[in-house]
Every structure is written in structure tokens, then in C-alpha cells.
């Protein structure tokens, strides 16, 4: 009975969509309207220079802007930088800035702000930029008010990919220079150059942004208001979309199976595009310091024991693609030519036997990533699979704090994590494998203690390559080695689905998806 109704509704929806499609195929953007979205979880702050969590970037991305943005093919696109040039030796990068850009408080934006951001603010507060700046950057200068020049100490093939919003948001010098960045009251009243300004933020309820009338792109943005609503319960978020309270669901806003259901509604469209710059890759992290995971054969056995297709299909509701190695298939320098680990329990058991390790002697603590139901299911699944190999697995539940701390302190046997790749392996991939990155205190480094001088060498060579071909060759080789070593247990590439009402136009246009400022987005009436 119910199925019939659904079919009818779907048919009607299709019909309507068809009609509307023909009627409005060539429509032009209209001004006005309110776009409702969800910020999940509620961001602690909107100052993207100090916090680069997903929700912060999602909301803060409408307020702050970076020098560059990236297409779905990861090609750099202009943002606050109008154009750029690279010297042939790969050591000098010159950016020309947009004209007539003003901060939300009316002060003009200039090259000084970029230099302050790069040399002071981010160098102090942004761990990734700090690493790049100290390793590669020789000097940053402004030959003209609308020009910024970065001189490098040595070539860095990924440099042009380091100017994305989460890596390099431009900070207003006149507000932050000379202050304690973290306690600056302006963190609560963010001042950016973006198309929208913060109107009010009712904590626990919503964040309200309004159109920036002085925006530097004439006639933009189209929208009047943005609401980011705080809805802590996943099921409630799905209901909110269904009832039309919100127009857009970002990947992760609702559970996978809800996505499956919601995209079938009429007037709804969805895309997995918009995550190319991040390309989140999910992996198991096995602590290589101790037995049994210090043994490569055990790690390989684990890979064979886990049906990654099952995980993608049944736990993540098809929202993903089995990973072949450390680099996501959408990231630059991805190579398919690596050893594979098909699901094969017999082979897994054989590898355990070959290793000579008695699994019962090595109880394993499995620490799930505390990010919600699907991650919990995955832990439960992995536990079952490993127990079939004879291991005794205990799930050690923690909250986000406990997880970060245990991982950062190397206090784990087996855990999960996922990594953003930021377009270029030098930015998001190498950090998990370089022996120099075995550092206590952060959960996002080489916490598993993978040490291989050959790999270190190849990563360094690739990053310092001046030509793309050199870099590609080095990356291809390193992928082979790492995959054979099972430095991490790569599970799958996450496909985050953006779901939106069809009336919302131009929503996902770049490789950073919804973090892209929405000055081109409009709502049809």
C-alpha cells in the first residue's frame, strides 16, 4: 500500500520536474530569498583562522575568503587573488589581488592583510601553514598594494594547493595585529571579506548571516539571508529537510540510509561532487609499535579479513568507494598500480599462521572514532571479523576528547580515522607516513609509527620536484611500497552527498563544495 503511494508520488514528482525543467531551463538568477542549512555539530566559533572544523568552515566560509579556490578537477581558481604567476624555477609565486575589496567593517583590504595572515597570524596559529611556512617560505613581500610575492627556499610542488579556505583564510590585520588572537573579542563578531555578514548567533539554535551590501563582486550575492540551524539529533535533521525547514543537507548531516530515502523525494537533487579538494579517506590505524601489528603479515591478514565492500554497502549505505591505497582516486598523483587486498578469510588465516603469532596471546583494544552511529557499526563489524581470526578484541569506547588524547599519546592498538587530502599528497597524505611526523600530541600524524627511510626519501623528492612528471613518478613508487607494507589499513573513500531542494541553484560549483562562499547561489521562486 505504502509502496504504491510512494510510486505515485514519485511519478507525479517526475512529471512536475519534467514540466518545470522545460519551463525554466533557461531561467536567469533572481535576487532575494533565504537559504536554510544545518550546522552540525554547532561550530564553537566562526573564526576559520583559529578553528578549521567542518561546521566552522561551512559557516565561516561565507564570511572569510582565501586567496584561491579549486575546481572539482582541483585546478586553482581565483578568489581574493585575481591572478597569479609562478617563476620557472618554481621558487617565486606572485599573486595579484582583487580590486575594491572591503572588510565587513568598511576598512579596505590590501596586500598588508595577506602578509599579516601569512607571516604572523597563521604562522602562529595554524599548524599546517606553520609547517609549510617554516620549511619552504623564504620571504613574503608586497611590491604593490595589490600584489603579494612568496619567495621559496626550495621548490614545493604542492605550494599552489596551500591557499584553500581551511589552509589559508585571509585575516584582517587591523583587527588582529598586536592582540592575543585567541582571546580577541572579534572572534565572536567575525569580520571578513565574504558575501555574507554575521547578523546574530543564538547558540544552540541557529546562526544567522545576512547579505554583505558592499561585497566586491557587483550585484552579488543573490541571497538575502542564510540560516544555519543547530539540530543535534540526526533523525530530527532528516525530518527538518523533509518538512522543508532546511533546503540543504551537507554530507554527514543525516545518516546514510536517510540520504537514500531523501534523494528519492521529488524536487530534490543530490551530488557527491564538492569534496574533491578534501577527498576524505577512511583508514584503520594499527599501532606498529607492538605485537601483533608490528608484523606486516598480520596487517595484511587484517586487510584480507575485512570485507570493505560490505562496509561501504551495509554500513555506509553505498556512500563511498573502496580505497586502494593512501591516495584517494580524486587526488593528484593517484596510482592504481599497487598490491590489492580482496576479502579472503582463508588467505587472512593463512597469513596469521605464517606469522607464527598466536592471536589469542594478543588482546586488541579497538578504539572507535566517536563520530556517530556508522562509525560505531564499523567498529563492531571489524571486531567481529578480527575475532574470526582468533583475536580477542575489546571495544574501548571514548568521547571525542578521549579519542584525540589516546591517539595523540599513541595509547591504542587499533583505531579509525579519516584524512583530508587537500588536493596534493604533500599536503594531506605524506603526513601520515613520514617518520619525521611521529610526534606525540596530535592525532593526525604518523601515530602508528610507520618508519621506512625509502618512503621518507620518495615523499621528499616528490614534494621538491619541479616538474609534475618527476613528482608523479615518485608518488607512484611510494604508493606501491606503502600499500605492500600496509602502513595504514585503508578502507574507503568517503562520498559525502550534498542533498538540496532543486530550487536552490549553483550550490556546488567547486572542489571545496559547500565551503565555497555562496555569492553565486540563488533560489528560484
Amino acid at each position, binding site marked *: 500500500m505504502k509502496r504504491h503511494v510512494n510510486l505515485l508520488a514519485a511519478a507525479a514528482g517526475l512529471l512536475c520536474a519534467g514540466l518545470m525543467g522545460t519551463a525554466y531551463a533557461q531561467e536567469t538568477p533572481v535576487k532575494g530569498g533565504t537559504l536554510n542549512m544545518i550546522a552540525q555539530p554547532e561550530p564553537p*566559533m566562526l573564526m576559520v583562522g*583559529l578553528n578549521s572544523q567542518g561546521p566552522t568552515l561551512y559557516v565561516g566560509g561565507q564570511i572569510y575568503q582565501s586567496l584561491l579556490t579549486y575546481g572539482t578537477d582541483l585546478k586553482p581558481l581565483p578568489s581574493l587573488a585575481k591572478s597569479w604567476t609562478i617563476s620557472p624555477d618554481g621558487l617565486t609565486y606572485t599573486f595579484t589581488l582583487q580590486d575594491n575589496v572591503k572588510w565587513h567593517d568598511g576598512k579596505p583590504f590590501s596586500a598588508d592583510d595577506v602578509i599579516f595572515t601569512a607571516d604572523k597570524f597563521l604562522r602562529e596559529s595554524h599548524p*599546517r601553514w606553520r609547517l609549510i611556512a617554516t620549511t619552504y617560505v623564504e620571504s613574503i613581500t608586497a611590491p604593490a598594494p595589490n600584489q603579494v610575492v612568496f619567495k621559496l627556499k626550495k621548490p614545493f610542488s604542492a605550494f599552489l594547493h596551500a591557499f584553500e579556505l581551511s589552509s589559508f583564510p585571509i585575516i584582517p590585520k587591523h583587527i588582529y595585529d598586536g592582540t592575543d588572537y585567541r582571546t580577541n573579542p572579534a572572534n565572536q563578531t567575525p569580520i571578513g571579506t565574504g558575501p555574507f555578514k554575521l547578523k546574530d548567533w543564538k547558540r544552540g539554535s541557529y546562526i544567522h548571516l545576512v547579505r554583505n551590501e558592499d561585497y566586491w563582486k557587483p550585484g552579488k550575492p543573490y541571497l538575502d539571508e542564510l*540560516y544555519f540551524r543547530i*539540530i*543535534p539529533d540526526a533523525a530530527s535533521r532528516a525530518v527538518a529537510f523533509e518538512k522543508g525547514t532546511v533546503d540543504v543537507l551537507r554530507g554527514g548531516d543525516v545518516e546514510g540510509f536517510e540520504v537514500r530515502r531523501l534523494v528519492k523525494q521529488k524536487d530534490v537533487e543530490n551530488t557527491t561532487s564538492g569534496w574533491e579538494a578534501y577527498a576524505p579517506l577512511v583508514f584503520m590505524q594499527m599501532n606498529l609499535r607492538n605485537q601483533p601489528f608490528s608484523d606486516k603479515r598480520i596487517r595484511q591478514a587484517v586487510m584480507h579479513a575485512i570485507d570493505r565492500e560490505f562496509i561501504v554497502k551495509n554500513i555506509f549505505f553505498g556512500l563511498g568507494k573502496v580505497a586502494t591505497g593512501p591516495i584517494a582516486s580524486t587526488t593528484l598523483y593517484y596510482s592504481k598500480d599497487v598490491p590489492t587486498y580482496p576479502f579472503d578469510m582463508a588467505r587472512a588465516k593463512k597469513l596469521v599462521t605464517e606469522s607464527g603469532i598466536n592471536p589469542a596471546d594478543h588482546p586488541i583494544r579497538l578504539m572507535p572514532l*566517536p563520530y556517530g552511529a556508522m562509525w560505531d557499526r564499523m567498529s563492531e563489524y571489524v571486531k567481529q571479523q578480527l575475532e574470526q581470526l582468533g583475536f580477542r578484541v575489546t571495544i574501548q569506547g571514548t568521547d571525542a*576528547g578521549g579519542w584525540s*588524547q589516546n591517539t595523540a599519546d599513541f595509547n591504542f592498538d587499533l583505531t579509525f580515522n579519516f584524512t583530508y587530502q587537500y588536493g596534493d599528497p604533500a599536503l594531506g597524505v605524506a603526513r601520515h607516513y613520514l617518520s619525521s611526523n611521529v610526534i606525540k600530541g596530535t592525532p593526525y*600524524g604518523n601515530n602508528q609509527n610507520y618508519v621506512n627511510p625509502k618512503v621518507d626519501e620518495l615523499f621528499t623528492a616528490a614534494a621538491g620536484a619541479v616538474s609534475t612528471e618527476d613528482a608523479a613518478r615518485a608518488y607512484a613508487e611510494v604508493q606501491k611500497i606503502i600499500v605492500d607494507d600496509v602502513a595504514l589499513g585503508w578502507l574507503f573513500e568517503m562520498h559525502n552527498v550534498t542533498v538540496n531542494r532543486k530550487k536552490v541553484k549553483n550550490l556546488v560549483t567547486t572542489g571545496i563544495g559547500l565551503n565555497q562562499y555562496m555569492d553565486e547561489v540563488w533560489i528560484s521562486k
Partner: protein
Amino acid sequence: MKTLEFAVQRLSKAALVVVGVVVLNFLLIHLAPGDPASVLAGEAGAGDAKFIAQLRAQFGLDQPLYVQLWTYLKGVLTGDLGYSYRNQVPVATLILERLPATILLTGCAFIFSLVLGIALGVLAAYRRGSIIDSAVMTGALIFYATPLFWIALMAVLVFSINLDWLPPFDMETIGAGLTGWARALDIAHHLILPTVTLGLFFTAIYTRLTRASILEVMDLDFVKTARAKGVPKARIIRRHVLRNAILPIFTFASMQAGQLVGGAVLTETVFAWPGIGRLMFDALMQRDYPVLLGVFLVTAIVVVIVNLVADLLYRVVDPRIEAAG
């Protein structure tokens, strides 16, 4: 003892309780494993030891525990509840922003459960042994045994999703720009489900207590006196039994006020209610200790105030208390 004097004495005792609660919580929370600095560093995308040390120093986490406690207590005395590591806002601001929502929710649930519970309890006691009595008491037993979160889920399923009568979450229609009465009505509309869900468990408790209390009072001698005077049953219940029976319910209810906040953690999560219950849970998950402590402090103060008011009211209603001191 005069009421004023009683109030002063009771206040000083209350202050002691609040301080005790603060110290207890402070020690408890700081004994726990889990370092807020590393959580924060983790969230910043990555972090190295130097960065974390810098954060620890900034938040005073490198100080010995007793120094931290002393600093905190000094702050509390001057109304400074500390600074939220994560939200980069003073804790007091954060809590004051959220408190009204929780007070509205728990207050409504409190009144709802008390009024309905007492009414049902009186009804059941008055009709003791009848079908009405059995129905009311069975209902009370069932709601007493049903998990709060489960009722919440079922209520959303039935009243929001299937019937579409009531909004399933939020405190008001966001962006509707309502003002005045329209806004109040809108909030009231949103308030129904969470209030009823949170209140049902307590309604069940009060129903059972009221019935038991009334039956107990009905066994007392003065009820016999009233009957011997020729007072009809309905009037006996109204004039003699009810007042005597309900006083202990009020006392109990005031002691339960704190438990409502506990229930609010669940209710606010399911109904996206922007209150301190959820703030507490979020703060806990993020190791945002100052917020956690602040929420407990404020809750303790609210509970203590409710108890105080209940005590004062009790003195007004029951003439015996003042004499007994």
C-alpha cells in the same frame, strides 16, 4: 523563628551546599583522564607538542590542581565562571544564553507534571478500587517504567511525523520573525512535545505519591473527626485531606527539581531544545570543563533556590513548621 531569620539561615546553608557541589565537581572532573588542550589542538586540524603546551599554559592547565581550584573559586565569587576553551566565550555568557530555554522547559514540565499528577492522584484516591483508579494507576506504572528517550522518540514519530500536529524540534520557528503574542504562541506550540515527554515520568511519580499520601491522610484521626461532624466525603477530601496530603508532595517535588535537569539532557537532545542540558552534554564530549562546571554550578543554584522557595512556602502553608524551627 521568624521567617526572615529562617531565610537567612537557610541561605547560608544553601551557599555552603553550592560551594560543596562546586568543589566536588571540580575535583571529580579534573581527576578524569582526557586533556582539553589536546582535544582542542586536535580540532585545530593538527597539533604539535609546543602548540599543546602553549594552550595548556593559556588555560592554566599547567598549574597544580589546588591552584586551579582556588582560582576557579575566586572567580566564581566574583561572578566569573571562567572562559570556554572551545567556544572562546565567557562561560557565564554561554550559560545565560541557554538558561532561559531550560528554565522554560523544565518549569513547564514541572508544573505540568505536578498539576496533572496531583489531579490524577486525587481522582484515583477518591475513586479507590474503581476502574478509574485501576486505569490511572496502571497508566502511572507504565509511564514510570518507560524510558524517557523512548517516549520522546515515539512522540515524535506519532505526533510530528505521522500526524503532523506538533513541531518535532526547535524552540520556535526560526526566521519567521514573529513578535509578541504570535511568538509566544509559536514557542508554546514547540513546547508541547518536550514538556509532555519530560513531564510524563514525573507525572507518574506524583500520581502515585498523591494517591498514597491521600489514602494515608484519610486514615488519620482528624478525618474521622470530620466524619463525626457530619462533613460529606467530597468536602472532607477538599478541605481536610488535600492540604495535608499535598504538602509532602510539594516537598518531594522541590527535591526532584534537579532531576528534571537530568531529564532535560535527554529531552533537549531529541527535541533540539537550546538549553543547558545539551550544553552540558556537548561540553562534556568536548572536555570543555569550565562550561561543564558552570552548568553544574548554575543547576545547583537553581535547585537550591527551588528548595528554599519550597521551604518558605511550606512555612507559610503549614503553621507547625515555624514553631518547630
